[in-house]
């Protein structure tokens, strides 16, 4: 749907906890930490905020805490807080809702939070809970896990396009390398092909080191309208947004190696961004959803960065490396940073904010102009793509 936007939404501040097993912090503590940091970064006080959007996936199931927007209001002392769902795309959905509120003049300065605490249960229970983002009736209830569904997608992609284990491994290796330079990241260590090959099999051919780990973390953004953003040196403006959907159950899709949600979202986002004269070849770097290595490869293809089936080659040729033609996941992605589900989409936007304002330190992409974030839910049931400019 084409919408003519007169006023764009901007990010003017960002803050985050590290992603880790935060044994000592609950939801409240993480929310406080991230939000204090974001407000400090934007140099504003709580009183100046007029809306809050909080993304969360599993607090009801894992932490026994539903009504997460009420928790935020309580913890921060703020009114007008809305909870946003959407599986692991909840973070990006929250950014879009905040942007909508700003663009329709419902809000001038919004706080956008993504929070998740996944370390409080054994991994077998967490795996079952994560299945909630897949299709329940035909997938989760019959025993399919997110990993097993992605495994089938991976096998098909390998069969159809000759994608190799080496190419899958290179995604993880690159993302770990990038994560080593990211303060937020949980997995700041290099890995080699042998490490991946030796890591336990999760769901053939997906190994542990092809898989993003569930994590604890909270990220927060301060977003505002153009008028307020004009007073800031550091900012990132949303130039285009697209939200796409596909059949939820993998087996319903004609081609299980294609994330139609991503290609639809990309088309819509670039249609909007075209108003600012931005084309796909102008994108300087992208943060994409590598919950499993194949996720990054398919995302590269279905966003439109590479032809269908050549995502693996794109990786193998080094194009996605930090000093490559089109850096993918300079932050370390989900694999390197860890994946607190609803925080991920916000983390991607934080990376954009730092990169576009030359604040990414040793992982700085050279002179970036336009950036893209892609946040997926489950096996690609939905996708939210945002395109940013300075």
């Amino acid at each position, binding site marked *: 749907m084409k919408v003519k936007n007169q006023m764009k939404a901007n990010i003017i501040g960002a803050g985050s906890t590290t992603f880790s*097993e935060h044994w000592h912090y609950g939801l409240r503590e993480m929310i406080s930490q991230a939000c204090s940091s974001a407000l400090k970064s934007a140099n504003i006080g709580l009183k100046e905020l007029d809306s809050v959007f909080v993304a969360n996936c599993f607090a009801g199931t894992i932490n026994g805490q539903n009504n997460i927007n009420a928790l935020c209001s309580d913890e921060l002392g703020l009114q007008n807080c809305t909870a946003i769902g959407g599986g692991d795309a909840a973070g990006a959905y929250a950014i879009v809702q905040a942007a909508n509120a700003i663009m329709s003049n419902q809000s001038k300065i919004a706080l956008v939070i993504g929070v998740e605490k996944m*370390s409080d249960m054994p991994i077998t229970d967490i795996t079952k809970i994560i299945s909630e983002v897949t299709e329940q009736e035909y997938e989760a209830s019959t025993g399919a896990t997110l990993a097993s569904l992605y495994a089938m997608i991976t096998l098909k992609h390998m069969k159809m396009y000759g994608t190799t284990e080496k190419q899958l491994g290179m995604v993880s290796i690159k993302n770990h390398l990038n994560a080593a330079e990211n303060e937020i990241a949980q997995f700041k260590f290099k890995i080699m092909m042998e490490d991946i090959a030796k890591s336990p099999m999760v769901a053939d051919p997906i190994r542990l080191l092809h898989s993003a780990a569930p994590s604890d973390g909270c990220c927060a953004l301060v977003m505002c309208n153009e008028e307020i953003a004009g007073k800031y040196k550091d900012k990132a403006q949303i130039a285009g947004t697209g939200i796409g959907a596909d059949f939820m159950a993998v087996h319903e899709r004609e081609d299980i190696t294609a994330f139609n949600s991503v290609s639809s979202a990309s088309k819509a986002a670039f249609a909007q961004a075209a108003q600012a004269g931005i084309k796909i070849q102008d994108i300087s770097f992208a943060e994409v959803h590598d919950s499993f290595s194949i996720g990054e490869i398919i995302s590269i293809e279905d966003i439109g960065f590479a032809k269908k089936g050549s995502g693996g080659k794109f990786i193998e040729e080094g194009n996605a490396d930090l000093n490559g033609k089109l850096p993918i996941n300079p932050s370390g992605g989900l694999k390197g940073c860890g994946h607190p589900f609803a925080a991920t989409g916000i983390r991607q936007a934080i990376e954009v904010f730092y990169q576009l304002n030359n604040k990414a330190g040793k992982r700085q992409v050279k002179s970036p102009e336009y950036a893209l974030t892609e946040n997926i839910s489950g096996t690609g049931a939905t996708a939210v793509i945002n395109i940013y400019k300075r």
Partner: protein
Amino acid sequence: MEELGFKGRKMAGIIGYGVYIPLYRIKTEEIANVWGRDVEVVKSGLLINEKSVPCIDEDTVTMGIEASLNAIKRADINPEEIGAIYSGSETPAYAVKPNISIISNAIGMGPRHLGADVEFACKAGTAALQMIMGLVSSNIVKYGLAIGADTGEYYAENIGDQSSSAGSAAFILGNNPKEIVAEIKETLSFTSDVPDFWRRPQARYPTHAEKFTAEPAYFKHTITATKLIMEKAGIKPSEVDHVVFHTPNGKFPLKVAKTLGFTKEQMKAGFVVDKIGNTYSAASLIGLASVLDVAEPGENIILTSFGSGAGSDAFYIKVTDAIKEKRDMAKTTKYYIDRKKYIDYATYCKYTNKIE
């Protein structure tokens, strides 16, 4: 409140010690193959090659008796003179009826003694040792016997079943310097409410909070207690001859050693988990016995146990000249480690009552 130390009291020291490890062993791959686990991944993750298995008629009472008899041989005393007995275990024969009354009777202690069973997960044995230290150093008893014993077990399909094993260690303490083979010069404990591993009263098997048992539990308490005991003893890692940590697996104690600046050489004499698995309340005490089997007079030992729930007991021990004449008076730790017979998985299930 911090412990007051031994000022004005007699030093309690080890006058006799002994271990018992059951005959049977099951290899790591024997269990891993049944459950479809990658053997190399399991072995490199746990650093355990095989573990001890109690026979169908063995339990913490029988093992406690065997270890105590070895300790009495080394102590070379009349068991009737042992005035107190504490047995630490998380797998006692009964939920209510103490191990110690059976053990004290079997080893000839007679009825006139203090004693009770002790529980603090894997540090119940060292907790028992501290209790005996108190009674001996205050001269309430002439000799005291502390036992750590367990027949650790897990759900068959749980990874914990790869490491949990069976064994016991017994230490007799006295306060006569002429009899002491190893002085316990300092002890302290570090405890906090961390529910990393527990077993509910009616549950047969424990529950393990996975990664939560690592940093907030094992590492925090072991490292803190060890730093505190070194500070109390006024020594640096380089000045320690032998160091023994609790061994839930082979990796954790090596990681603690590396963090604190101890070498593999310092760990070597007390590191037996790769051959017998995690004997729970006996683990760090079997490690200590293994050190005493080879330590030279004048050498010092740092021992830090860990019990889930959670806490660590730390000890600074100094070996005396008397060790040389005493240690060969009973079977060594090496004897029990090397004395073994391999069994298959079905036999393992039978002996550990996994098949009912």
